[in-house]
């Protein structure tokens, strides 16, 4: 049966057992990864972008020629651009100029327009520029999606990611590990899992320093904290170094056939730490995207 549109192909991503990098663990401790790069836009962000857009269309915030604008370090922008192309609305994205050429190219292929922010200001710089652009929008041409504050973001994960994980582990999940960016995945998936299986442990992972190379993640103490972040959802927060995130991303590609991005490496590092502390359990972590969005070094635009 064919899908009606790309929107219907988002989600229901595969769950895969990690075998080789877990050989040191007892058989009673299982680690699974949810492969979000199987989404049509290439990352986990297809989910919140879809929910944000569908909710906005239902409310009438989007439609009638409104342009969707948001700040993004890449993946959400790709998702919005894909949805804009498929559902028929314009997309403008504020991105730091040091996002990879791959991300810039794919976004422009979908027909979206990029407004570049200062790469030295990071993703918070993009947030600030997006807000300023919206404030100066006297014609009212924009609708600001605001993924860091929009409750449709965690809702997407509460409705899809969480129930999928519960279903695909046969209800056996004991620990859920998620890295923190907008915090939508952790907040929403965590909420769903805590309802479906009281007693499940929710663990968040963040970079261990303000200056880090884990694309997409936030070191909360030094960043603008997203409004959607619900600190009551995770039971525990782990800090992971950029070095570990990159090393594990490389190992997952070389030893498991999973060519994932650096935030995935960080989530896996967190899962391994949890695994080392338990005698039995079913740990699920989220692999947000594919390494091919990061590979070539990029030229900087001013």
């Amino acid at each position, binding site marked *: 049966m064919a899908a009606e549109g790309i929107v219907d192909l988002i989600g229901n991503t595969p769950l895969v057992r990690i075998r080789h990098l877990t050989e040191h663990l007892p058989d009673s401790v299982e680690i699974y990864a949810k492969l979000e790069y199987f989404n049509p836009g290439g990352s986990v962000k297809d989910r919140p972008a879809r929910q944000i857009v569908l909710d906005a269309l239902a409310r009438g915030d989007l439609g009638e020629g409104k342009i969707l604008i948001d700040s993004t370090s890449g993946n959400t922008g790709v998702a919005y651009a894909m949805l804009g192309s498929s559902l028929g609305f314009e997309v403008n994205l504020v991105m730091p100029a040091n996002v990879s050429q791959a991300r810039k190219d794919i976004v422009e292929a979908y027909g979206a327009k990029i407004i570049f922010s200062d790469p030295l200001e990071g993703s918070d710089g993009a947030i600030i520029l997006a807000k300023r652009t919206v404030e100066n929008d006297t014609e009212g041409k924009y609708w600001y999606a605001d993924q860091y504050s929009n409750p449709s973001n965690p809702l997407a994960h509460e409705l899809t990611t969480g129930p999928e994980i519960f279903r695909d582990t046969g209800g056996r999940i004991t620990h859920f590990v998620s890295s923190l960016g907008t915090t939508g995945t952790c907040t929403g998936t965590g909420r769903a899992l805590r309802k479906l299986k009281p007693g499940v442990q929710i663990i968040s992972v963040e970079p261990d320093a303000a200056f880090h190379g884990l694309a997409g993640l936030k070191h909360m103490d030094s960043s603008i904290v997203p409004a959607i972040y619900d600190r009551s959802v995770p039971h525990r927060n782990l800090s992971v170094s*950029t070095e570990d995130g990159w090393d594990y991303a490389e190992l997952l590609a070389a030893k498991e056939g999973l060519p994932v991005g650096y935030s995935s490496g960080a989530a896996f590092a967190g899962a391994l730490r949890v695994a080392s502390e338990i005698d039995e359990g079913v740990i699920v972590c989220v692999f947000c995207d594919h390494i091919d969005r990061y590979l070539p070094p990029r*030229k900087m635009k001013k």
Partner: protein
Amino acid sequence: MAIQVRIPTALRKLAEGRDVVEVEGANVGEVLTNIKSLFPALAEQLVDENGKVRRFVNLFANDEDIRFLDELDTELSAGDELSIVPAIAGGR
């Protein structure tokens, strides 16, 4: 030569809160060595214990990634900019 070193937000508190600092150096390697004496805590964030630039740190000499130029031997002239750019950080 006096090089303008541009500092990313996350590291400004290690550079006396400044977004640009002036450092001497005829090439990128020399500038990094001089950053180490002027701002040791800042230098620690940029290079590993073997003195190599950390993998996720991108250095741009006047908007060109030094990987496309001469790496640490990339020569610099007075007034040139050396930008320290993390491999995209913070949020989605």
